[in-house]
């Protein structure tokens, strides 16, 4: 009974979060603008320049998994901001006055970020196919990528909710969102291989979960080199578990 309730609570939150997107899907397209530009402009230009060594693959092949991850992070990192908005109205106080446990709220919100991320990534995915980026598209690779994308959405929305529990104002959360995205992106293997980085950046890239997320997608979509796939999946899942747990614990601080 309690197990069933645990899942129905989470799904209730996720369900109604997703209905909001159903009512107004323009957000998905607005948030897709930046990743699309990365892929279309940056990707195509640098493919021609051949300044970044990407081995046997074209630069745009190399970049596509990175941009997929980026499109997800753009959405997920602002979940904390939305939560602060809810707090500034009475929405959050009312939600917390219902019997639903706090961790279910956090899990439901992060799960909805994960599901939403799939729609977000789909735009990039479709675009990549249209501009004829050569990707491995087997049922297994697609399922694998969808799992990674969902985990990524959960992971970074968890981080965002965790930060919101401490910073609590829209201005700070807006600033934090902006401040986190670019360093995360640049200090990872999303747009260039870790090998060409200076040592200090290599260290950061190795502890940046985004590197593992991108590598997982890259091995499934581009290289078909699966020798470290378990590591990539493992780190992604672990980072997600840690950040979502931290967010669940810290969450009730947000209204204090």
């Amino acid at each position, binding site marked *: 009974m309690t197990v069933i309730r645990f899942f129905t609570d989470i799904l*209730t939150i996720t369900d109604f979060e997703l209905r909001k997107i159903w009512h107004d899907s323009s957000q998905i397209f607005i948030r897709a603008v930046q990743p699309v530009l990365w892929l279309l402009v940056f990707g195509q230009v640098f493919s021609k320049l051949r300044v970044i060594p990407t081995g046997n693959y074209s630069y745009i092949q190399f970049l596509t998994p990175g941009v997929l991850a980026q499109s997800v992070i753009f959405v997920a990192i602002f979940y904390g901001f939305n939560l602060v908005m809810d707090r500034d109205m009475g*929405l959050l106080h009312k939600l917390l*006055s219902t019997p639903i446990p706090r961790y279910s709220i956090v899990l439901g919100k992060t799960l909805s970020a994960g599901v939403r991320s799939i729609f977000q990534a789909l735009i990039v995915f479709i675009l990549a196919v249209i501009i004829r980026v050569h990707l491995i598209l087997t049922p297994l690779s697609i399922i694998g990528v969808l799992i990674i994308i969902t985990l990524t959405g959960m992971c970074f929305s968890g981080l965002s909710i965790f930060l919101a529990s401490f910073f609590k104002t829209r201005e700070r959360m807006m600033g934090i969102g902006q401040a986190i995205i670019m360093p995360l992106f640049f200090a990872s293997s999303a747009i260039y291989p870790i090998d060409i980085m200076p040592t200090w950046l290599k260290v950061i890239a190795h502890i940046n979960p985004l590197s593992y997320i991108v590598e997982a997608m890259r091995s499934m979509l581009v290289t078909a080199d699966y020798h470290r796939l378990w590591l990539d999946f493992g780190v992604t899942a672990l980072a997600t578990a840690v950040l979502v747990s931290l967010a669940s614990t810290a969450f009730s601080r947000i*209204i204090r």
Partner: protein
Amino acid sequence: MNMIEVDNLTKRFGQFTAVDDVTFQVEKGEIFGLLGPNGAGKTTTIRCLLTLIPVTSGGAKVAEIDVLKKPQQVREVSGYVPQDVSVDGDLTGYENLAFYARLFHVPASARKERIREVIRFMELADKANQLARTYSGGMMRRLEIGQVLINRPRVLFLDEPSIGLDPVAKRMVWDYVKQLRDEFDATILLTTHDMNEADHLCDRIAIMNGGKIAVIGPPAKLKTELGGDIITITSDNSSCRQVLEQLGYKLLPHSEDSACDLVVDDGERKIPEIIDKLKNQGVSTVSVSLKVGTLDDVFLKYAGQRIGEGDMNWATTRATRRTARRHG
């Protein structure tokens, strides 16, 4: 039976004591008002009772459930309508209700019926399938109250239920609150800084100021304790004062022979009686005026300041925010 029991409740934020050793009880079926200016500790008291924030010391029970020991159970029997907008503008009215039906674990078989019932009671049928952000202020407030009615709460906490509403919508909310008690058998704790609202709605009020309760009682009684209403009668007959004294009325010392100030309870009803009696004694009246004792006077007496002093900035800010939310 007491549905709310607050015992020596104290809540501190760092050095600041928001709620200072507060004790009161609310009986089953009562509408109880916490009245006070902003920062008096009303909202903090409510949030402590709803287990939203931890208390510093003291304790409380809601529906005989200990707030400190069983927070989950307290939330199961309570309904909370915060003063700020608490419906999701990006969902329809119906979805907002369905969401809370599921959050409150209303059995699937009963959900539709409950939602229908609330839509009917709160008169939301017209716009139930439109996004809540298109609602007027009054309608939004009805939806906000409707959301927690889904749970059929035994204790309802309303934080400033009519704030920011126009006079018509305000009246409507007042009527709903009274019906809620009667039809849903709920006990209601509300906060307000509107004297009129407290007077109109509440069976009993507690005046709060600086985190403390200054006085508790029924509005009428608190007003009477002030000394009652004052009726000023002028007459062209110079024996007016003498006659009134003979009839046994209490006059203020500065009364003159033909212009008298009387202290009475329930002044409005006393006027015709006094005029009749004077007429029977052959004294005709030229003018009568009544100054009714108000809760504002009560507040002034106990809190040492008029309520709402220096509140304008806050009220304006809020109004702007609400508008921005609705149209933004």
